């Protein structure tokens, strides 16, 4: 397996609390990965750190993307290298049209491609292209429009933070459809999720707790472990005894 992104012994402290504590993960090129774990485990923090968002840049360890350290790269440089993020709650842009929003990062800014990616996420271009990405759109519509923009960008690595949060069943199917498009494009996907339905779309999963990977492997293996051992432990860090049967590493 080719590794597209490697997190090496990442330690991140925010507000005096160690959020990521020696996090080491290899993400394989072209695969759909899932990060699961209890609330506060560090999953969204991991996505934000990979994207290089403000507040997540001062960490120890290294981020290796396609063989090169990107720890010092700005957000836009990472994006131009093919990394992007679908937010748990996408931003609203007063007055900015869906067309301009999608075309902002698109590889092909032509009208035909813009319409195509909107159709790919189940939205009618005639109804949406001239609308503003603002509060008149529902959360599900904004998530789909964000995914359309990311499809148009043709990225190499897509971070999806809770793609199913705040959306209905129809929108979720469109998001699963977008996953298939990413796969067809050869992109790597890292999904942060609490949902079994989303987890099942992944090919490989990592269980994170207290800023560390505590288990990894097939979706079936990790989901079973999560169901059996993590739902009862809430937020606390597993003890060594609890972790003794966990195999971490390649």
């Amino acid at each position: 397996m080719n590794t597209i992104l490697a997190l090496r012994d990442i330690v991140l402290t925010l507000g005096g609390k160690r959020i990521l504590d020696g996090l080491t993960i290899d993400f394989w090129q072209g695969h759909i990965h899932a990060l699961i774990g209890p609330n506060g485990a560090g999953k969204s923090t991991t996505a934000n750190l990979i994207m290089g968002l403000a507040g997540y840049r001062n960490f120890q360890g290294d981020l290796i993307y396609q063989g090169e350290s990107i720890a010092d790269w700005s957000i836009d440089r990472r994006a131009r290298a093919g990394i992007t993020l679908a937010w748990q709650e996408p931003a609203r842009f007063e007055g900015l049209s869906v067309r301009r929003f999608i075309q902002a990062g698109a590889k092909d800014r032509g009208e035909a491609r813009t319409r195509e990616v909107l159709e790919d996420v189940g939205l009618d271009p005639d109804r949406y292209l001239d609308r503003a990405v603002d509060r008149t759109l529902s959360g599900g519509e904004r998530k789909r429009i964000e995914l359309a923009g990311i499809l148009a960008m043709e990225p190499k690595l897509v971070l999806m933070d809770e793609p199913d949060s705040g959306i209905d069943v129809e929108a979720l199917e469109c998001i699963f459809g977008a996953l298939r498009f990413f796969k067809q494009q050869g992109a790597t996907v890292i999904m942060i999720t609490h949902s079994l339905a989303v987890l099942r779309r992944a090919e490989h999963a990592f269980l994170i707790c207290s800023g560390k990977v505590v288990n990894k492997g097939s979706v079936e293996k990790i989901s079973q472990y999560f169901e059996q051992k993590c739902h009862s432990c809430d937020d606390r860090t597993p003890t060594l005894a609890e972790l003794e049967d966990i195999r971490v590493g390649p």
Partner: protein
Amino acid sequence: MSDRSLLEQLYQSIGVNPHDLWGRLDVARIEIHANRVLGVHLVPGLEVEAESRAEGIAAKIAVRPGAQLAHPVQVCFGMIPDDGVQQIELRIEIGADARAGVVAHCTFPNARNIRHEMDATLEIGPGAEYAYFERHVHGAEGGVLVVPKSKVVVRPGGRYQTDFELIKGRVGRIEIDVEATVEAHGTADVSARVSGRGDDAITIRETAHLVGEHARSALCTSIAVRDRASAEVFNTLTATAPFARGHVDCKEIVQGEAVARAVPIVDVRHPKAHVTHEAAIGSVDAKQLETLMSRGLNEDDAVDLIIEGLLGGKRQRLD
């Protein structure tokens, strides 16, 4: 330079092919360069009288009672030279139950030392509807002083809508002053969208007096200032009649060393009137910025796009 050449240059500076417009006999137009009216084409129901003055023109535009203009009147005014004065004195009368719109392009593409003054009085007749959109295009030097003043009376049941846009080129210095008096069941919808940079200075005064029952008004201002530019917005809404409704909305984005100030004044003198106001001044939203940067835009381009949305988006309208 011939008149035709002057007009072609004016239109080119705003990205309009004049030959397309000149071929449209169903669209009225008025073309003014400095102190001369270079072209007028009228349609039924529209009357224009204009005379040249030493440093500008005086004009009266009237729409006859009941006339319904199918297309907005196209107005182009400006100056091609880099210095000079243009004073426009304007009287606009929209007759009872008439309906008209004006799209005005004001362009000073080469300005280094230009002063443009507009002194307008408008009367929107009973039941009439008048929508005015003015777009300014200035050059890159910022050597323009723009002082547009309008006094508007909206008669019972009339609707007045105005939108001022200056988001391309440097502002220079601008001092907008619009004051509307709205009678019973009338509406005044006033909006300005301006983007300043360098040492541009923006002053906007929007005032509406709701003097009649059920009169309504929205005063909306969106400003972006960067570098060392400054903006002051004074929005005043007074309501002295029952069931008058009004809203004041001011949004200002501040970047770099720019300074922005908003002074909303709401003065309600009738217990059955209702007026609200909202002002937001701040930097570009971090989440918006990071979202666009995560699509590959650098910070400057991302800020430009956010401001383009804020200033270029569809303006708010009354219900």
